[in-house]
């Protein structure tokens, strides 16, 4: 007989395999049929969704207003690109499994780049988060903004990674076999599932408690410093992953891709979507990434209309497009509210 928990894991495993296969074929179809211009926009949307949803973990769910997200995005991009462009060819070029150019070799190298990029960004998040999260509100915002810039300036001054010229000719690992969209999908799903699961868990409740009232959370025995730093590290790690994919799709990176403007765009996505709302962040990221492209027919007036639409959105819905609500799994969400009590009563 198969035990209950065993069956649970089998079902879960099969679900994951099914989703992966589905995504794989979907990616294939998209790659084969989509115009490369739209394809690029799609990739960019995915990357910005990851950035916005990961920043939402920090800004929205834990309520720590950070506006230096591009810094961690940069760390991921640079460390990932350093692996494929500098370290792997220099030190491990003869390793049999790490040959680039084959589908398998590319995938392995990309995974290694992702792991390194994520670790580095998480570490940067920890180093930046630990001291700055003692601050609140506007002070925290200023410090994170500053740290984001510090990271960019540090990169700007490391000659090994090209300084102001940046790195170019990064191998397009994610494009082999039409896999770019697949990897981006994977990342987006990972960050969204993590956020959703968090919101339905006890741990998520303590994160929300920190947002609601830090002193009260403290008084309930929540280790608020730990919660804030954890949120910051996880958010930074996902930004790092997004950076790795960016570097390996667009094949060129330079410090100005990760400047303050990028940080502010990501923050705008979170606020516009409705601070705390995962679905809001997804929608706003998609909108803000594709809108400038969709408005190209307006020629010179493009950015004027873009800015105006932002202003109108903020004026008409100051709480963000979604407020703190979620769509899609609404019934699911409602079930959490009751099941939090229901399961406790069981």
């Amino acid at each position: 007989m198969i035990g209950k928990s065993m069956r649970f894991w089998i079902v879960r495993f099969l679900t994951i395999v099914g989703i992966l296969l589905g995504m794989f074929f979907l990616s294939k179809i998209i790659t084969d049929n989509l115009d490369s211009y739209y394809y690029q926009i799609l990739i960019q949307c995915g990357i910005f969704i990851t950035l916005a949803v990961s920043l939402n973990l920090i800004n929205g769910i834990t309520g720590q207003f950070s506006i230096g997200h591009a810094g961690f995005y940069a760390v991921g991009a640079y460390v990932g690109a350093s692996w494929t462009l500098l370290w792997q060819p220099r030190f491990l070029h003869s390793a049999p499994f790490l040959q680039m150019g084959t589908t398998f070799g590319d995938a392995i190298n990309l995974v290694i780049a992702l792991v390194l990029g994520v670790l580095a960004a998480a570490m940067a998040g920890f180093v930046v988060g630990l001291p700055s999260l003692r601050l609140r509100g506007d002070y925290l915002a200023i410090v994170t903004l500053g740290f984001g810039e510090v990271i960019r300036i540090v990169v700007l001054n490391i000659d090994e990674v090209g300084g102001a010229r940046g790195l170019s000719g990064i191998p397009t690992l994610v494009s082999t076999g039409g896999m770019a969209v697949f990897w981006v999908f994977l990342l987006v799903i990972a960050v969204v599932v993590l956020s959703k699961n968090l919101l339905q868990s006890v741990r998520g409740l303590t994160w929300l408690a920190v947002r609601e009232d830090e002193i009260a959370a403290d008084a309930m025995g929540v280790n608020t410093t730990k919660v804030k730093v954890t949120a910051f590290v996880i958010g930074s790690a996902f930004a790092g992953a997004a950076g790795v994919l960016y570097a390996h799709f667009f094949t060129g990176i330079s410090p100005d891709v990760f400047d303050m403007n990028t940080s502010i765009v990501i923050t705008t996505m979170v606020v516009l979507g409705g601070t705390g709302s995962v679905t809001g962040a997804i929608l706003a990221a998609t909108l803000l990434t594709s809108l400038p492209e969709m408005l190209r027919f307006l020629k010179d007036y493009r950015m004027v209309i873009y800015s105006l639409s932002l202003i109108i959105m903020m004026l008409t819905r100051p709480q963000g497009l979604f407020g703190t609500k979620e769509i899609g799994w609404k019934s699911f969400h409602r079930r959490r509210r009751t099941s939090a009590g229901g399961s406790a009563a069981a």
Partner: protein
Amino acid sequence: MLTISNLTVFYGAIQALDSISLEVNQGEIVTMIGANGAGKSTTIRSISGLVRPRSGEIIFEGKPIQELPAHEIVKIGIGQSPEGRRVFANMTVRENLELGAYTRLQKKVEVSSDIEKMFTLFPRLKERERQSAGTLSGGEQQMLAIGRALMTRPRLLLLDEPSLGLAPFLVQSIFQIIRDINRQGVTVLLVEQNANQALRIANRGYVLETGNVVLAESAENLLKNDDVRKAYLGE
């Protein structure tokens, strides 16, 4: 149970507590009364670890706790309802209570029976179980704040101004509830502006003035004391 000796606290350059000492024994209700700025809330915050004292000792059940962070202090059995209630406004009443017990949420049966106890103590909260806490009235929020603090299963409960901003008839019932909680074996340290009510339910009282304890007596004697009557009971 709790012994504070020579506790001195500064906020920047401003001295909030000047070497105060006080004691709370097992099973008592002890109240601190005094004007605004006398240092009542600062004392509570020092005990609960939200403020670091400059010098002095806080001993709880034989162990010094003045260096412990706030979340550790909850775990050793000191619960608190902070000043101004501070309920989690966007969470439901039930979620607020669950957060009080968050360190032991795995024990679902135990937590849920504790929540039921809170609903027996505060029937109004039962009616509002699925409502978000921000929509409750001031009195109900105060009940929730006390309930949430009790969910941490404290042996010592710190209450900071529980009657603040409540309608008079609610004040009565809040004090009645505090007395009930105490009868169930929870020691209470109560900070109150409403000295009259506080002294009526307390065993002992401390009168604080500008960071000093100026009087420490049984509540009964304090209620009879002429200076106290003039200064704090409005007679």
